[in-house]
């Protein structure tokens, strides 16, 4: 059963106040995770572009978070902490995926033999080109793009989520956008 603290139903927003007076336990953990489960799942799905893998990523993040939950000193930081765990897990999955990346032979052949097919719907072609460009980015940059343009996080918030300096966020974002811009321009030709 979700959404209860010490056996009592908890109103959204009241969790933090109650966490200060109760020992962090299973119910508190469930409530905190459940509170951002939708956002976490959506973020993971956007980063990974795979709903099944996103479910696994969120579940794994929950397991990792539960293991470290007792050591979390400031429950107010739970959301950022959990997001960091989730994003790191997604990044690792992207890395693993990059190592076992296979070429979609069917699509490559179709594009090569029937280039006019892609012109039928220009908008779709542009979207496909952009999607491929995102896939070709480094895992860290893919995560960063998702956090910036889907989660709408600011540069400081992204830096906090990824535990990297703001300058690094800016430079990686700049690099990623440069490649995406190039991909978009090529798709327009």
């Amino acid at each position, binding site marked *: 059963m979700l959404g209860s603290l010490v056996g009592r139903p908890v109103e959204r927003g009241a969790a933090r106040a109650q966490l200060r007076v109760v020992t962090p336990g299973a119910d508190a953990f469930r409530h905190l995770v459940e509170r951002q489960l939708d956002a976490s799942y959506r973020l993971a799905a956007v980063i990974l572009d795979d709903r099944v893998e996103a479910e696994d990523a969120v579940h794994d993040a929950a397991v990792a978070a*539960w293991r470290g939950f007792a050591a979390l000193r400031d429950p107010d930081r739970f959301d950022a902490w959990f997001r960091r765990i989730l994003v790191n897990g997604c990044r690792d999955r992207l890395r693993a995926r990059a190592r076992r990346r296979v070429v979609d032979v069917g699509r490559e052949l179709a594009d090569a033999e029937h280039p006019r097919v892609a012109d039928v719907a220009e908008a779709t072609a542009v979207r496909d080109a952009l999607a491929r460009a995102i896939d070709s980015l480094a895992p860290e940059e893919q995560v960063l793009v998702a956090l910036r343009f889907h989660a709408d996080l600011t540069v400081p918030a992204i830096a906090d989520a990824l535990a990297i300096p703001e300058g690094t966020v800016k430079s990686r974002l700049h690099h990623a956008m440069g490649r995406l811009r190039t991909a978009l321009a090529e798709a327009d030709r």
Partner: protein
Amino acid sequence: MSERDDDLRLERELRGLLGDRDPGPAPYGLRERVDRVPGRDAAGESVAERARRAIVAALGLAAAVVLVLVAVPLVAKPPGPGPGGPPMPVVTFDPTLHGPGLVPPPALEAEVLVVLGLLIVAGLVLAVAPSGPRRALAAFVLVAGLAVGGAQILLTHAAAGPVASSGGIGVRNVEPSDPARDGRYPVYVTAAPGDPFSFGFSVRNEGPLPIRLEGVVRDPAVHDGVVDYPTLRALWRDGSSQGGVTGPTGPVAPFGPIDLGPGEFTVLWLVWTASPCAAGPSFEPIGDETALVGIPELRVAYSVLGFARTAVIDLPFEILQPYQATCPALD
């Protein structure tokens, strides 16, 4: 279209693309899975996971113990006196002395333990580390460690070469004879049953790496239990620091570990006692039909780069002990 327009369009396309990936609220199945996470146990682990972590921890502890057991003797080993080092305390040669310089055969060579420890540690890291850079780093460490360990083993085996023994014989209670057919001089033990006899030999480090002589291997399986064989008793170091040979009647010292640089050598004396069946001083080499026994194969124990090695002592002479045809000790 201006650059700003391009950027705005790119951002719009990006948001649209990422928005298309957005699946909406989390499905019920995921909620159930996440809801069960804290119920696994108090530590957030299943019983199988706890058992796995306990095994991993135990193996890690074992690996650490193995590494410490290997590393401590390598690091803490005191330097031995080399040929140019401080002189050994010289004492009167005591042919009845037992023990010094005789070492048991190496049981499990250190590099085997090192490689084993590396494998265990790297395997543990690979098992515990999640996929990603830490796992890749562990794999790299595993490969690099094995490569370095393998290279070191090859280096110490192949490049160091055997410790050669040649020339220089001094005798006590043994009788040299004419050259034998293979060029090795037969040397007959003339000590009475139970009496000591000794002979000297030189050991040269012919490899490119410094070595430490640890003694002569006394393998109970080889040297004990055969009543008509002589018994290996002790190893002495010749007292001359200038490369000369003083012999057992001159200055000598009980053996201690000796460091030898490439090309350096030292002279050693092995002390034995004749077997209860030895023919003794009455033996006549020519025309005598007394049976002869040789001494078992001798190996010098040494270490190179901290790894234990042995090499056969290739004596330029053949020690032969005549023994009585009718030996009371065999009855």
